[in-house]
């Protein structure tokens, strides 16, 4: 595979956007500083940022101010506008810089975008994609480090994806933009710089499909976003313990690929769900409950969950690192099951 092109998750996101914006003139991008230096083309100061996480560099240069729109700090306004634009024929991609900011703009997503199709008896279409950044590990504390993807998963009508690699980031974002329903694309900040092989041609990774990131016989580790790599590291470490762990990478949180999860647990008889989100009413308990209800007869032991502690994300570096699920915690949980 050495000759294959390897790019980062960040570059994969840029590429998916560029290709879809070329493919369909209805695709627009809006958010805070997705370009930067708005209105300063004359002075040659435009596209100063290309997004707070630099995923949009080059898009303003190629598609211009009509399709790459910097917004004021008005999440309720521009996310609601994205919903209205989607209802009337465009395919907006709106960025919510940090998922934590959903506190100021949940309504357009929940009561409007997610429900419009249903409330209109199937007439409204809201082909909206919201890209947002989730997760801890960057030292930004409680208001900039949450996962919150369980909120979106809870809301009927929303589709929710969380890529774990550059390959899936490009495929899922492409699928999200082409989907006629609102999709929340949750990318973990610590994944942005990670690289792997990504085909140059446009492709979709289907929303609603999980993958087996590693095959194993003894226990099923379920991960999403960053915790997929945590599971893979734990699985590697468990080899020394003589444990052969399978790793399921959810990729789509809604709709959830229940069959892939259940089939794996039915094979292994053991399950540990690893989720960086908060413990209560989160993704881990959602998947654990699915297993406890539909794979119960195949279980050889309790369904274990490993999540963030029941606390806001702390600032202090050692605390923040201990806050996030680690391969050691996963390994310890598995060994308790064996």
């Amino acid at each position: 595979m050495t000759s294959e092109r390897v790019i980062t998750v960040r570059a994969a996101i840029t590429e998916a956007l560029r290709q879809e914006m070329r493919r369909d003139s209805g695709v627009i991008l809006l958010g805070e500083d997705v370009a930067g230096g708005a209105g300063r083309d004359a002075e040659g100061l435009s596209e100063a940022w290309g997004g707070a996480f630099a995923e949009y560099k080059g898009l303003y240069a190629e598609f211009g101010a009509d399709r790459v729109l910097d917004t004021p700090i008005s999440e309720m306004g521009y996310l609601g506008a994205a919903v209205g634009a989607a209802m009337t024929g465009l395919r907006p991609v709106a960025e919510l810089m940090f998922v934590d900011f959903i506190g100021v703009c949940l309504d357009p997503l929940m009561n409007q975008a997610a429900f419009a199709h249903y409330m209109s008896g199937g007439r409204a279409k809201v082909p909206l994609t919201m890209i947002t950044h989730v997760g801890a590990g960057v030292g930004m504390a409680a208001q900039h480090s949450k996962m919150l993807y369980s909120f979106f998963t809870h809301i009927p009508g929303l589709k929710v994806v969380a890529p774990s690699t550059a390959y899936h980031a490009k495929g899922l974002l492409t699928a999200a933009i082409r989907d006629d329903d609102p999709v929340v694309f949750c990318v973990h900040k610590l994944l942005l710089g990670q690289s792997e092989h990504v085909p140059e041609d446009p492709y979709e990774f289907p929303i609603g499909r999980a993958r087996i990131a590693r095959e194993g016989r003894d226990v099923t580790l379920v991960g999403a976003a960053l915790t997929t790599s945590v599971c893979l590291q734990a699985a590697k470490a468990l080899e020394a313990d003589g444990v052969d762990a399978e790793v399921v990478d959810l990729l789509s949180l809604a709709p959830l690929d229940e069959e892939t999860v259940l089939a794996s647990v039915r094979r292994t008889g053991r399950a540990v769900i690893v989720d960086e989100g908060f413990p209560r009413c989160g993704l881990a308990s959602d998947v654990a409950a699915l297993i406890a209800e539909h794979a119960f007869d195949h279980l050889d032991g309790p369904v274990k969950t490993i999540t963030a502690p029941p606390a806001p994300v702390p600032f202090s570096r050692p605390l923040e690192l201990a806050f996030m699920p680690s391969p050691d915690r996963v390994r310890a949980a598995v060994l308790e099951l064996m």
Partner: protein
Amino acid sequence: MTAERNTDTSGTPSREQTLGLYATMVLIRAFEQRFANLVLKGTFSGAGHLYIGQEAVAAGVCAALRDGDYVTSTHRGHGHCLAKGVDPNEMMAELFGKATGTCKGKGGSMHIADFRRGMLGANGIVGAGLPIACGAALTAKLTKSGRVAVAFFGDGASNIGAFHESLNLASIWKLPVVFVCENNRYGEATPVEYALAAEHVVDRAPGYRMPGILADGQDVLDVFATAGKAVAHAREGQGPVLIEYETYRYSGHFIGDPARYRSAEEVESFRSRDCVLRCAEYLQAQHGVSSKQLDDIGAEAERRLDEAVSFAERSPAPDLAEIVTDVYSGVRR
């Protein structure tokens, strides 16, 4: 049954246009009366917010719009729907929760929407329609469709964040959107003079570098003329406009609200300037319309509603399987 679509979007309406405006107002009032009676009879459950008293605003504004133009509405949206040309049969069926309703019975009064008519939806969330109208206007601007979006909202909504963010966004992006505030003096049981830290909602327009218009919402001619100017301004690419129409809701906030927060004198002072009566007088005085003609319009509205109610009554309830359909469109581009 809606006003003939206005092409000359400025000045005084013609005789036919005025007759259309009158017919629209009469239809809206008749519709709301039927609705209120049905709710009071317990025919169906749910919140009902009557538009009676404000008919001139919906009629006048929508008459200044074209079919393809967009409208976002509120929890008090029946008038906006009818004025925008949504079918009364489907609307009544929706209120009955029937499968033939505008939304298959899944939306109800606060969510009536008809995308075929540019009616992007009533809304149960105060202020939520303003950003959506900005988005529809953005589509119009980027696709150069020449369309305009109108956001209807109340005096109470002018104090919520979405109002602020929408007006600012529409202004910096020069969006073809008209913000229509129906100042009916109350947000639920709260008087506007208590909740609004300004004399008029339009006093806020300069803070967004936006033209503001204050007009008599009980005079359909005034509404038609001012809306026409604002819509033309937006359509010509000159950016958004904020209009405040001074009006009044005759009934309580919802069907059943005794409205103890206002005096009988106040109610009377507004009723005495009733938009329907004044339009009738105008038609008789200026255009020699006979009371017979006016009665016929009233009778036609009643006939239309008999039809709507029996259509709704005859219609089947949605199949229980519909509970879980239309969650996702399932469609992909």
